C-alpha cells in the first residue's frame, strides 16, 4: 500500500472533512451500499514512514469531533482529556484520525442519507449494519488517506469494540489496540437496555415507521431512550453523591409528576440536549449493531481463536482498562478478553482502575488511564 505524505493543500486532511467513496460496499448482512459517505477529522501529520497513525473510534453517540469544537453544539471535543497537545495522543507526534461510524448521523452514511435508488432518505430501508461493517468503512477511509498500518486503534465502549474488531478483521493493519471500558460481546442485559431505548423511539407516534421529517422528529421517544441509557453510564454511587434524594427548586414534595427530584431534572435535561444533536433512526441502527456484536461467535464461540492471527502472525499488542463502578461493561467482560488474549499468546496489558463515575469514567478525568495509555503507546512507537 502506498503511503503519501499529506500536503498542507491536500483537502483530505484536517477538521470536519467529508469524503464519498464509490461502492459497492459489501456489508455483513449480505446487502451492500452503492457508495460510502464518511465524515471525519485528522490531526497532526502522517510521518514519512507512515508509522505514527492512530485511529480513534467513538462510542454510540459520539462523533468525529474528538478534539475540536463541535460545529453544531460549540462544545469542546469529547476526548480532549486524552487527545491533544501534551496528551498521550498528541498531534505533535501522532497522525490522528477519527471518523463518524457507518450508520451515524454526523456526515457518514446512515439511515438519514439519501437512497440513490429512490432519491429519498433511506430511513428504515437502510441495511442493518454491524461493528465489523463500521471497521470496514474505516479501513476504506484509511485506504483513501494513504494510511497502511495503524500504530494503534483506540476506543472506549463501542469504540473499544471497534478497536478489538480491527485486530480480528485486519490484524495486518494494526500494531496495537487500546480498548477501554468495553466488552467482546453484548450481554443479555446490554441488549435489554438497548431494546428499552428502541421501543421508546418506536412507540413515539412521530417516529412514523422511521419516515419522520426534520420538523417533526420523535424527540420524546429519543429523549426517553437517552435517559434510560444515561443511567447505565453512571454508577449508583455517583448518582447518590451528585443528587441523592434532593429536590429540584422546591422545599417539599409536590405530590405531582413534575421533575421534583434533582435526578429527574438532570435526566430530562440529558434527554432533551441529546435530541438536538442525534438522529432517532441512527440510534436504532447503531444500538442494533452493538447488540449483534459477539467477536467469538464466528470462531466457534472461542474468543481466543478470534485473536489468534493478531497474536501469532502479527504480534499485535493490546491494552485494556476497566473501571470499578462500570456495570454496563464490567471488569469481568474485560477479564474475559484478557483471558482469551493470554490463551492466544498475545502481549496484553490490563488493569481495573478505581473510579466512582461508572461507565463514563473513560471520558472523564482519569490520570491513571492516561498514564497507562501513554506508557503503552510509547512502548510501541
Amino acid at each position, binding site marked *: 500500500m502506498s503511503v503519501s505524505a499529506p500536503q498542507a493543500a491536500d483537502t483530505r486532511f484536517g477538521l470536519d472533512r467529508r469524503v464519498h467513496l464509490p461502492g459497492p460496499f459489501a456489508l455483513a448482512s449480505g446487502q451492500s451500499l452503492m457508495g460510502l459517505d464518511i465524515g471525519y477529522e485528522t490531526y497532526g501529520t502522517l510521518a514519512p514512514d507512515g508509522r505514527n497513525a492512530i485511529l480513534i473510534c467513538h462510542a454510540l453517540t459520539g462523533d468525529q469531533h474528538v478534539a475540536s469544537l463541535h460545529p453544531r453544539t460549540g462544545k469542546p471535543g469529547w476526548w480532549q482529556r486524552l487527545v491533544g497537545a501534551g496528551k498521550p495522543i498528541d498531534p505533535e507526534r501522532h497522525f490522528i484520525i477519527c471518523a463518524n461510524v457507518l450508520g451515524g448521523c454526523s456526515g457518514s452514511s446512515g439511515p438519514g442519507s439519501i437512497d440513490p435508488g429512490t432519491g429519498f432518505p433511506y430511513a428504515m430501508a437502510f441495511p442493518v449494519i454491524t461493528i465489523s461493517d463500521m471497521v470496514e468503512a474505516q479501513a476504506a477511509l484509511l485506504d483513501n488517506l494513504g494510511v497502511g498500518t495503524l500504530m494503534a486503534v483506540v476506543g472506549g465502549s463501542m469504540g473499544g469494540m471497534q478497536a478489538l474488531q480491527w485486530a480480528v478483521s485486519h490484524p495486518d493493519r494494526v500494531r496495537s489496540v487500546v480498548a477501554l471500558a468495553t466488552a467482546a460481546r453484548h450481554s443479555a442485559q446490554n441488549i435489554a437496555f438497548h431494546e428499552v431505548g428502541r421501543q421508546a423511539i418506536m412507540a413515539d407516534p412521530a417516529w412514523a415507521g422511521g419516515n419522520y421529517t426534520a420538523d417533526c422528529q420523535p424527540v420524546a421517544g429519543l429523549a426517553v431512550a437517552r435517559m434510560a441509557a444515561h443511567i447505565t453510564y453512571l454508577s449508583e454511587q455517583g448518582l447518590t453523591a451528585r443528587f441523592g434524594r434532593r429536590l429540584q427548586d422546591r422545599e417539599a414534595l409536590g405530590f405531582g409528576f413534575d421533575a421534583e427530584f434533582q435526578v429527574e431534572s438532570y435526566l430530562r435535561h440529558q434527554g432533551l440536549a441529546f435530541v438536538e444533536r442525534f438522529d432517532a433512526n441512527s440510534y436504532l441502527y447503531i444500538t442494533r449493531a452493538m447488540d449483534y456484536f459477539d467477536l467469538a461467535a464466528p470462531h466457534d464461540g472461542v474468543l481466543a481463536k478470534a485473536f489468534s492471527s493478531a497474536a501469532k502472525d502479527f504480534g499485535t499488542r493490546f491494552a485494556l482498562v476497566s473501571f470499578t463502578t462500570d456495570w454496563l461493561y464490567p471488569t469481568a467482560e474485560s477479564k474475559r478478553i484478557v483471558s482469551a488474549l493470554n490463551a492466544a499468546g498475545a*502481549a*496484553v*496489558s490490563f488493569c481495573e482502575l478505581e473510579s466512582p463515575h461508572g461507565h463514563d469514567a473513560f471520558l472523564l478525568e482519569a490520570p491513571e488511564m492516561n498514564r497507562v495509555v501513554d506508557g503503552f503507546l510509547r512502548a510501541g512507537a
Partner: protein
Amino acid sequence: MSLRPSLQAVADAVPHGARVLDIGCGDGALLAHLRDSKNVEGRGIDVSAANVAAAVARGLSVVQGDADADLADYPDGAFDMAILSDTLQAMRAPAKVLAELLRIARRAVVSFPNFCHWRVRGSILFGGRMPVTPILPVSWYETTNIHFCSIDDFLNLVDELGLKVESATFLSGGVRRSPALANLLAEQAVFVLSRP
C-alpha cells in the same frame, strides 16, 4: 538500575532472550531489568492496579490478576521461564500454583523468605512473638503472607509434586552464602525448578 539482592539472584537465573512470565511482578522493576539487560520477552501479573499502571507506563505487558485464579488462562509451555519472586507465601494454594508454573513454563524460578531462619526461630522461641525481621518486616495482622515455609518444607513440596531442583541460591543479609545449614542460616532462597 540495580536490583535488590534476591531479585538479582532471580534475574541471574533467567537466560538471555527467554520468554518470561513474572507472577507478582510488582511495578515491573525485574521485568524492565530483564528486558533491558537480557533482551527478555516479558509478561507480568500483579494484583495491584497501581503496580500494573506503573509497569505498563514502563512499556511492559502486564495484567492485573491473581495467580491463584488466572494462571489457568495460559496455554501449556507458553513460556521458557515463570518467575515467582517473594510471592509463593502469599498464595492461597502454593502447591497448585507451583504445578501451574511448570505447566505454562519449562522452568520456574521461585524465591521466598525462609521461615526457619535462626532470627525467626529466635523471635518465636525466646520472644514468644511472630517475627518482624528485615526480610519479614510486616506484623502478623497486616502481612499478605499466609503460607510460610522453611527451605526444607519447600524441598519437601517440590519432592511431593515430582519436580526437579536445577539449582539453588541462598542469601543472608543480601549476600549469597553456602548451602550448608541453609535451613537455619539463609534468610532467603531462590530455586530453579523443572519437570524431570
